[in-house]
């Protein structure tokens, strides 16, 4: 947007911090709450420094009472505030499902379109390094399934900042899922104001041979795979939807019609996942354009093990993505 200045290299977590800071300066209705977000600045340092600037009324440390502080955020949002809740791990978001699914997601609907719940639930998921079964899950499909929620999964610092700002200004509840391995990722981010519209996919790498759809931490991994495949003469188009709800079907279908081959990469387990739904959309809308079966490269249907070798085997690695692309391209 207009006030954008020269971009700098900053970390994903710093980009998120900038988004929060800018939005809190802009709008006094924005406030943050979560476990250890104020004094400590959050376990992943996303909220560092906000307490000093905005004070304890707007940067609130909570007890470990996820259901109730999330519910309190919903209540505050109903009466016009714009809370940003941090749930430390998406695994703990399972404790807040009633407040998110039965309350936040349905309030606008149940009030005949009069009520609003302008809240953001920030959390993070995915495998880290040995965080085991209850701190490593990719649970976006649970939220994807629920009408009334927006679902955002940024893969770069640039997207993280622009999407979080848009999320905070959105009048509906937004589930904003970060990835624990991306917090230290660096990228170019403009210093000033910019927003990224929901429902706009981003081509992270153009290519003509195969459309690879990935989000969150599967994007950098897929880009690394695409680089290697390019050396073998396969031009992969890496498409990042950035928001799963709303989903940019148009961009996906345009790319598929061009390349005629599709790979969908998701870290989450395959069964009942978002990849399956995207595949069904493509299968229905672009069937005549497909030159080979849609490949889904997904996590194994298992809990995440602690042992690092076992952990790595459970989610798509670069070589798995490369193999999936080759299956898609050479199956024809």
């Amino acid at each position: 947007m207009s006030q954008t200045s020269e971009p700098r290299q900053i970390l994903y977590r710093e980009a998120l911090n900038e988004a929060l800071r800018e939005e809190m300066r802009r709008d006094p209705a924005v406030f943050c709450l979560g476990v250890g977000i104020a004094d400590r600045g959050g376990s992943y340092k996303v909220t560092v420094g906000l307490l000093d600037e905005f004070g304890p009324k707007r940067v609130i440390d909570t007890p470990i009472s996820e259901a109730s502080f999330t519910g309190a955020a919903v209540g505050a949002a109903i009466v016009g505030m714009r809370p940003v809740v941090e749930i430390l791990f998406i695994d703990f978001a399972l404790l807040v499902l009633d407040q998110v699914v039965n309350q936040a997601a349905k309030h606008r609907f149940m009030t005949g379109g009069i009520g609003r719940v302008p809240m953001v639930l920030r959390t993070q998921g995915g495998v880290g390094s040995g965080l085991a079964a209850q701190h490593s899950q990719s649970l976006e499909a649970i939220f994807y399934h629920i009408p009334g929620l927006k679902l955002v999964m940024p893969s770069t610092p640039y997207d993280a900042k622009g999407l979080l700002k848009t999320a905070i200004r959105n009048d509906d509840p937004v589930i904003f899922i970060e990835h624990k391995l991306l917090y230290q990722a660096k990228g170019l981010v403009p210093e000033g104001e910019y927003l990224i519209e929901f429902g706009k996919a981003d081509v992270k790498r153009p290519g003509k041979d195969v459309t690879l759809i990935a989000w969150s931490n599967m994007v950098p991994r897929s880009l690394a795979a695409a680089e290697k495949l390019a050396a073998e003469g396969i031009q992969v188009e890496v498409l990042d939807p950035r928001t799963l709800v709303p989903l940019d079907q148009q961009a996906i279908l345009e790319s598929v019609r061009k390349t005629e081959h599709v790979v969908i990469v998701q870290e989450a387990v395959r069964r009942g996942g978002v990849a399956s739904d995207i595949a069904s959309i493509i299968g229905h809308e672009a069937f005549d354009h497909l030159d080979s079966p849609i490949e889904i490269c997904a996590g194994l249907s298992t809990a995440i093990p602690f042992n690092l070798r076992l952990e790595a085997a459970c989610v798509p690695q670069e070589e798995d993505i490369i193999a999936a692309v080759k299956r898609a391209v050479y199956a024809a």
Partner: protein
Amino acid sequence: MGLSHSKAFLSDLYRTLYTIRFFENRCIKLYRQGLIRGYFHPYLGEEAIATGVCAALGANDYIVSTHRGHGHCIARGADLRRMIAELLGKAPGYCAGRGGSMHIADVRGGNLGANGIVGAGIPLGVGAALASSIRGDGRVAAVFFSDGAANNGVFAEAMNLAAIWDLPVILVLENNHYAVSTPVEQVCRTCDMAERGKGYGVESLCLDGNDVLAMYERTREAAERCRAGRGPVLIEAKTYRHMGHHVNDPGTYMPKDRLEHYLARDPVKIGRRCLIEKGGASEAEVQGIETEVERAIEDAVEFAVAAPEPDLQAFLREVETCG
């Protein structure tokens, strides 16, 4: 206690009590006729709680209701036509026919909504109070919930949040002695549930929930305390349903002697007596109020029965765009 109240004020209280009573009985008839579908949890027997609490709140304050929420809605000043229209699933209803009895809400009027999930409204009300505390706008939130909800984890969590943040919230625990059909004695070792608040450092009272004046006076004090930054307050209001959990539950598990004990302490009759004895109203004046209420409800029924259904095509178009 012993405060003197004007006849006009006592008339207002009685008008609300009687409106809730007549509304529920009239709507049960509509239910039996098949005009109201789904679940319907009458507030019969508990009228004094909503009436007293809401009379003590200001126009800008918030309430959070429950699945047994018609009384809260009426006491908050809802439009009876729009209420009955909602119960009938009609377009001019408060939720455009999408909410029904269990989800009736009037967000603009400060009623943040009934709730189909027992206990879920408690954190919502605490959140409204949190918003009030951040803005410093002096609003108070009154959250209605039941003895059943007090056994859900969010009760403990949310009360603690309200306590540590000194929030202006009045937690109104309607102890009607049953969680659906389970008696409170079976699921609580301490049945005086106000005791629970003390462990959280919360000012806690146990009141006769069938005494509308007691409910009003103590809620006023609680609201003042909240506005002075010394909230929250937990009010346990002892009461009893006059029938089963919902209109199709005969309530056979409710012991007769106990029901009779509470029927003898009928909150509407207590309010009526209060208007006559303390307000100096004549029998004719009281009957005048009753006739007025009955007319207003019959008018609302007529309006709602004649009201149009929600437009299906418009609904489907909206679903498509909201995705």
